[in-house]
């Protein structure tokens, strides 16, 4: 006990509450976490704890992924999945943006739509699959509709909440400078919310990805999810895992893309994030 205290005293600040971490520390710690994870996986898979066919090591998953692209035209599946997410998300955002903007800016609009939109969020999108199958068939329309339903109500609520948080003083300043209602809505309320809207899109896109796999597991012939189901039938665990890894990589890339977009579009928001 005594020894522990003496050692920890000068070093105790290392994990103090809210203490910022330097870039180097962040890279080292992040890399270490991955190395430990992959090492443990590799060890567990090669130590004969389970049959290797059911639990392949990361190296095998990686080569399966490579093989998928080289010999099974996996890129077509990836593109099909990306297309579904892109179309459905664009539609959902285009629907949610005006609704959320008006709900956030005008309480009277929110009072009308909120009782409708709020309960919708609690209806699980996958529960609509049988309905969508009957109405729209097993094609792309049904999948896009499912992805749309999966995110649209959350988008409306998140956008409305964010728009509502625009400071009243900014709106009143614009009004006393002679701005019309339209100018305040577009030039101040929307403009002030914009960085937050990009963040909301980035986060909800991750949710859209989770629904994608559900959509593609049901009656799909192409897409990453369909490939995973195909591989499962032949007990190709390495390919199933390669599919999951691919989803992770795509999600990460999209996340990075949106962060880059945020950085490029909103130079004024950079200083704030740089401050500790």
């Amino acid at each position, binding site marked *: 006990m005594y020894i522990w205290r003496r050692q920890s005293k000068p070093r105790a600040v290392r994990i103090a509450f809210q203490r910022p971490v330097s870039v180097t520390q962040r890279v080292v710690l992040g890399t270490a976490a991955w190395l430990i994870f992959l090492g443990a996986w590799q060890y567990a898979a090669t130590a004969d704890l389970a049959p290797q066919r059911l639990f392949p090591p990361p190296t095998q998953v990686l080569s399966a992924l490579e093989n998928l692209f080289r010999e099974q035209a996996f890129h077509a599946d990836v593109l099909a999945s990306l297309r579904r997410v892109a179309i459905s998300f664009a539609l959902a955002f285009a629907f949610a943006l005006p609704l959320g903007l008006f709900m956030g800016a005008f309480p009277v609009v929110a009072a009308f739509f909120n009782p409708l939109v709020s309960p919708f969020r609690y209806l699980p999108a996958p529960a609509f699959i049988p309905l969508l199958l009957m109405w729209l068939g097993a094609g792309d329309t049904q999948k896009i509709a499912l992805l749309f339903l999966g995110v649209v109500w959350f988008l409306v609520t998140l956008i409305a909440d964010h728009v509502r948080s625009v*400071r009243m*003083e*900014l709106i*009143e*300043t*614009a*009004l*006393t*400078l*002679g*701005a*019309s209602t339209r*100018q305040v809505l577009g*030039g*101040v309320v929307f*403009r*002030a919310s*914009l960085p937050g809207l990009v963040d909301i899109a980035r986060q909800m896109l991750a949710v859209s990805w989770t629904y994608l796999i559900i959509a593609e597991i049901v009656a799909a012939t192409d897409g990453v999810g369909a490939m995973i189901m195909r591989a499962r039938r032949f007990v190709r665990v390495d390919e199933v895992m390669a599919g999951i890894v691919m989803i992770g990589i795509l999600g990460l890339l999209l996340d990075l893309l949106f962060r880059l977009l945020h950085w490029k579009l*909103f*130079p*004024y*928001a950079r*200083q*704030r994030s740089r401050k500790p």
Partner: protein
Amino acid sequence: MAHPESHTSSEFGELRIGAVSKRYPGANRGEPPRLALESVSFDLQRGAMGVLLGPSGCGKSTLLRMVAGLESISEGRITVSGREVTGPGRDRGMVFQTYTSFPWLTVEENVGYGLRINSSAAGRRSGVVDYFLDRIGLMPFRKAYPEQLSGGMRQRVAIARALANQPDILLMDEPFGALDPETRWQMQELVLGIVHKERMTVLMVTHDIEEAIFMGDRIAFFSRGPGRLLEIIEPTFGADERRLDKAALKAIPDYGEMESHILQMMRAEGSRASEQTA
């Protein structure tokens, strides 16, 4: 709309507050409405600096917001340059206590915002923006974003933005309240300098007695519960004399008398309020 040519020049920049009251509906059903301001009358001539002074909760900010058109008027009538106030408009520019620079616009874009939305020609616009950027001393920071500026600088941007829009009257709600004393003092002198040069009518809310005497041509002192105009104080010593600087102001014998008079009223209001709540 708010062009100086569109009305008689004799009324331009004149503020008339005539027997104005403000009533808020009761919070619950059946509760009587709450009277926040009771029959306040106050006038300002063009180029005059009016100060609304009083303890917190006396309704001085409410009155300012009514002039801005941001609060409805329950009774009475407010006119600026002869036109009745019915809502916010560019003829009444406002500076708030909190920072209101648009974070997505640079300093010069902020200052030019009013002219841009009122579709003023780009050439004339940049001339006006340059003039006011120079007046507030932020020329070197014209391309900076507000986030990079200090609090005093951001408040200067807000003042320049309001003035560049060429209002008939400038309204300021405790504009220096969030600033440290040294910056505050600099800002008071800066604003006085600009406002006098432009012959701008100004109505300002403050609870700082020294600031009120230093800046105000007409000081309206309010009591609270409900807000009433107790007294209009016009500093007897001349404006030129007063506005040399703070040290010169305090050296004037009448200054001390006026300050202690206002301070006594402020104290009386304070003790009255504590009796009411007790």
